[in-house]
């Protein structure tokens, strides 16, 4: 019976007419999303570690910096805000970056195992292959973020902008995540080495988080740090999330006052993040396209 089934279909591709590949864009996105999700579920250790890291970061930073932080907050114009609430955007960014950087590691593994080439040689559209993997990576980023939300509520943080604000916080995080996914993919394609991508995670994460208003208000830091923070994408992620948590304009690197309130932070922050995404997204798509055109190592 097996042979019959197989035999019946063998001669089918003989005609030279148009080939119906049976693929649709949405279908192909789904196929790739499913594959990467399955992989993440089969190998949950990284996600579990990300959740633990996020949890410990929030608890540890609050415990260690809490007392000092309170003074700095007072001096930096955040009187009345508890340090946990102030710190939350920093831990959101840290969790997002850590998780986003794993995107490049998945890509490098695919290059190493030949799965990349195997996917290239199928009739699936490249857009769908990218989009499917990116969607799965973004879903994975959400896991530690949800845990952080839960934890922050337990610790007494309230989101002043309500449910819509919470959704917006997640979207901002994903926007930052997308940016660092693109960066890690470019690094992965340039180095073709997952340890290099791992090392780059640390290289990017620590300076970028410390050179931003993540732990302390910029007003409490030196002018040099404040200048560097202007050119740091994490600054915009932190400020946008903090504005949504506190329901007020918190951005100091770019002064905007035409929209009023939260929007004075959100509009420039989202703008900057979108531009950076466009830039690094294009770079990573270009690098992926090149890699798919010459798969000889």
């Amino acid at each position: 019976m097996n042979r019959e089934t197989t035999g019946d279909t063998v001669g089918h591709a003989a005609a030279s007419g148009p080939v119906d590949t049976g693929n649709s864009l949405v279908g192909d996105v789904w196929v790739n999303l499913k594959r990467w999700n399955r992989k993440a579920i089969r190998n949950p250790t990284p996600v579990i570690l990300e959740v633990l890291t996020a949890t410990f970061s929030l608890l540890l930073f609050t415990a260690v910096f809490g007392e000092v932080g309170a003074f700095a907050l007072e001096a930096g114009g955040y009187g009345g805000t508890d340090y946990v609430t102030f710190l939350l955007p920093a831990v959101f960014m840290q969790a997002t970056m850590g998780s986003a950087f794993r995107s490049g590691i998945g890509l490098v593994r695919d290059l190493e195992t030949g799965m990349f080439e195997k996917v290239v040689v199928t009739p699936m559209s490249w857009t769908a292959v990218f989009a499917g993997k990116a969607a799965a990576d973004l879903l994975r980023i959400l896991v530690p973020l949800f845990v952080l939300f839960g934890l922050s509520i337990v610790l007494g943080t309230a989101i002043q902008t309500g449910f819509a604000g919470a959704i917006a916080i997640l979207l901002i995080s994903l926007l930052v995540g997308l940016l660092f996914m693109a960066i890690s993919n470019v690094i992965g394609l340039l180095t073709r080495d997952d340890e290099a991508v791992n090392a780059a995670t640390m290289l990017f994460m620590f300076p970028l988080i410390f050179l931003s208003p993540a732990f302390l208000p910029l007003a409490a830091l030196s002018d040099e740090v404040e200048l560097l923070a202007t050119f740091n994408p994490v600054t915009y992620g932190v400020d946008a999330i903090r504005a949504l948590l506190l329901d007020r304009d918190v951005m100091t690197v770019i002064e905007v006052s035409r929209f009023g309130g939260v929007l004075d932070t959100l509009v420039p922050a989202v703008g900057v993040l979108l531009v950076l995404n466009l830039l690094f997204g294009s770079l990573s798509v270009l690098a992926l396209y090149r890699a798919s055109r010459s798969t000889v190592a």
Partner: protein
Amino acid sequence: MEHVAEERFSIEAKGLQLTYPDGTTAVDGVDLAIPRGEFFGFLGPNGAGKTTTIKMLATLLNPTDGRARIDGRDVTDDRRAVRASIGYMAQEVSVDEELTARENLEFACEAYGLSWRDRDDRIEDLLDLVDLAAVSDAPAASFSGGMKKRLDAATALVHDPALVFLDEPTTGLDPKARNRLWEYFRRINDQGTTIFLTTQYLEEADQLCDRLAVIRDGRIVADGSPGALKRHVGGEILEIQVAGNAAVPGRAIKAVRGMDRFDGSASITTEDGTIRITAPDASEAGTAVVLALHNAGIEVAGFDVEEPTLDEVFLAIADDDVPDLVGSTEPGEVVVP
């Protein structure tokens, strides 16, 4: 088959060339015309251009010159249609080790756009075919090398491609696993699938292929049926065992060369005290060689005349000193008209 194919050839390539940005030319003017249903073998030493050729034919590399068509479709202009119609098994085993055998096949089915109604049956058939049904729900990471290769082969065939590229499919497998894959390749070829196989195992090519081409330094240097190639190269092999210490074989080679009986195309080698002369008329020269060795004071312990194996053909062709054989095989068995 209901509809007769308009295209006679599954693969047609003309002047296929690939030069890397660093200036190395990996493939230099390869012509191919492979009819439908053929089991075609592509042989050559490491670095000769086998994989590069296969990658150009499989749309993974753009040729820097020349063109190739698969079932009449251009590999660069009509990439997606070509991809839908071919199966490709890379040299390195490529399966997703985090997924199970079944999930790997499912992903392949979906990637090739099989309708969901056909999927389950197809997956069961393939799992049976490559003998992985019993372990279908175990992650591929737990598989042996042979099992991974078989899974890899199965995923390349989910869509019943009319043409399958197999790049050294049995490298690193034990003989049992290799035999099993051979049987499987024969079966799909019997069912009408054209197969383009590269291999370093001459026995494999001899066993499976209808026709062979040998590539060396990016150019095809010989082609024809395994039998024709064997008959063509060297004709016969004369093996003479010499007795004595390690220096004797060297002296024996000198003595044989000193006879001036064999021209430059003959190969005279030595291995483990055996002198091996490959030449069209090696057996006729047997008596003269034994005499020459005797005169040189070398004791002959035994001698034997053999037909060349494909290994000998390969060694002779892969040797840079031997001129190209293209066009000198039997009529009708030559790749390039």
